[in-house]
């Protein structure tokens, strides 16, 4: 039987990320960690075949430093025993392709130091592999993920900013004499 961790357990695990996973990725001749090797090591571990040939092409030169850092943190997150119980097919298809957008919005170290970002990462990973944290219904899990989702939060901030700008534009126009003059043609009520 597959034992899914609770969200607190996943958060706790992510926050215990060793400093090695946070070391700068090797990119254009600078940095320390060969992210692609790390990813393939994790993949071999999860697939239970330690001698398998390299399976995952990361094309690191096309990715940002922040994204590679986040991939490294994910590698740590995936070291949780839970992921060895499930099929690893989802990793290549879904997971690695989704991190670019979110990585640009959050400083890498926050994923392991900030409680809310750790929760976001934990929920994002569990959602990607199709499992609901222990003790939650699918609806609760979705709802809680929405509440910590950086992309959604940024969208709300952007919408709020746009709405405020719009309100300001209308208020400025309300103060325009031109708008008041022309409004009087048939005014008598």
């Amino acid at each position, binding site marked *: 039987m597959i034992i899914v961790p609770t969200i607190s357990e996943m958060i706790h695990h992510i926050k215990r990320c060793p400093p090695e996973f946070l070391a700068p990725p090797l990119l254009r001749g600078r940095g320390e960690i060969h992210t692609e090797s790390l990813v393939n090591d994790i993949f071999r571990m999860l697939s239970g075949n330690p001698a398998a040939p390299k399976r995952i092409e990361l094309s690191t030169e096309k990715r940002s430093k922040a994204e590679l850092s986040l991939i490294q943190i994910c590698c740590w997150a995936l070291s949780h025993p839970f992921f060895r119980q499930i099929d690893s097919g989802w990793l290549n298809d879904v997971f690695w392709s989704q991190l670019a957008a979110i990585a640009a919005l959050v400083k890498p170290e926050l994923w392991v130091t900030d409680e809310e970002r750790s929760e976001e990462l934990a929920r994002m990973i569990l959602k990607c592999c199709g499992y609901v944290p222990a003790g939650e219904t699918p609806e609760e899990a979705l709802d809680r993920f929405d509440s910590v989702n950086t992309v959604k939060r940024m969208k709300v901030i952007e919408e709020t900013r746009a709405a405020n700008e719009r*309100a300001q534009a209308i208020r400025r*126009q*309300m103060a325009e004499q031109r708008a008041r003059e*022309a409004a009087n*043609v048939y005014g*008598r009520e």
Partner: protein
Amino acid sequence: MMKPVAALSDSERFPLIDDLGFLKELRQDSSAPMFNFGSGDRLTSEKLAQVNDYATRARAQQFWQKGTQPDWLPAFLEWCRATVPAYRSYQPGFLQMPSLRREQIASAQWQYVSDECIADDMLVYNTSGSTGAAMDVLFDAVSQAAWIVQLEAILAADGIRLEGGPGRVSICLVCNQESTLTYASLSTYLRGAGILKINLNPADWREPQDCVCYLEKHDPEVLTGDPFTFLALAEKAPAIHPKALVSSAMTLHDGLRQRLASQFKCPVYDIYSLTECRMIAVARESGVYRLIRPDLYVEILHPDKDEVLREGERGEIAITGGINPFLPLIRYRTGDYGCLRHDNDLPCLHDLSGRAPVMLVAADGRFINNVDVSRALCEFALAGFSLHQRKDRTLEFAAWGEDVSEADIRRVFAKLFGPSVVCKIEIMGAGMPEGKKVQYSSEFSETDVCR
């Protein structure tokens, strides 16, 4: 309150009218009043096409049947929820939507502007608050010009048609106030016809006979005014030949209607309208207001809860719809009360209240229009007030608001009603009770004034 000032050139006011000769003629006429303002409809060809479209639709549209909702309602509500910030959080289902009060709009007009609107197209009208606290109402040139389309619809029901065209004054808005904005304008929709707004107050004219002379010379097709203004006009007895008189702002009673109809030999219409949505209904006889716009859905709501009352039951009139994208209304409580009945398949408002004419009399016996009182009190930030006049002409005034003193109010009343006016004044700070924010009452009746 921000007083409007003339801020546009004539070519900005009338982008589609090349020859402004008639406008100059109306302004420079030797008997013309001393116009204090300028205003134009600002219709471009695109906007004029929209007004014409509205006119075509208005002619074809049918009223909803008894017990049903209009066909256009679902699409309108969907559009509101998608594009109007204040309605974005509304759940679908018209009857579940909350009603809307004037105060909600007055405190955040920008929340009711559709995202589709261009801010530059916005027009702002400040209502003096003859029945509620002063408020800025936002709209655009198209919904403003639609007022004429609505007027045409009323007249068309009796086979009356506005001729319009250059050289003809189609509409004259007549006021009888201490002061008001006056101007000569043109209507692009009526093909360059003249529009006048004049004040009967002798102080507005160079010579006493000019007012009658000017009206006779330009002989407007339609005159609009309130009952008191029409009474004052009737007493001046100009030899004019209007196709119709259109009264608004307060109830027109049958006695005056008959007098006006026989003197000016034309039908006299009493319009129920609000600045927030313009014309709603018309009465050809006392007490029955026929709805005139299938694009405005009217409900009667319970005064204290969002519950629709049965046909014939009396409650607060609420409006949904309209063509103003700067203020689309969903279940807007008008503050007026009445009941709705279908007479011959046409929805009609009966027992409409809140519009009773109020007779206020100055120390020297002159009639005072309550609009002048509202306007004069606009200089203070009052949340609301009530004014009652006793038969001995003393005034009883109660106001809710701060930063206003008894002396301020006395000064205003002395100017309006004469220095000898006696008034009892109560200023109550904040905490205004629910209900109409501005109330006028008087122990004088129409017969005291309409001799």
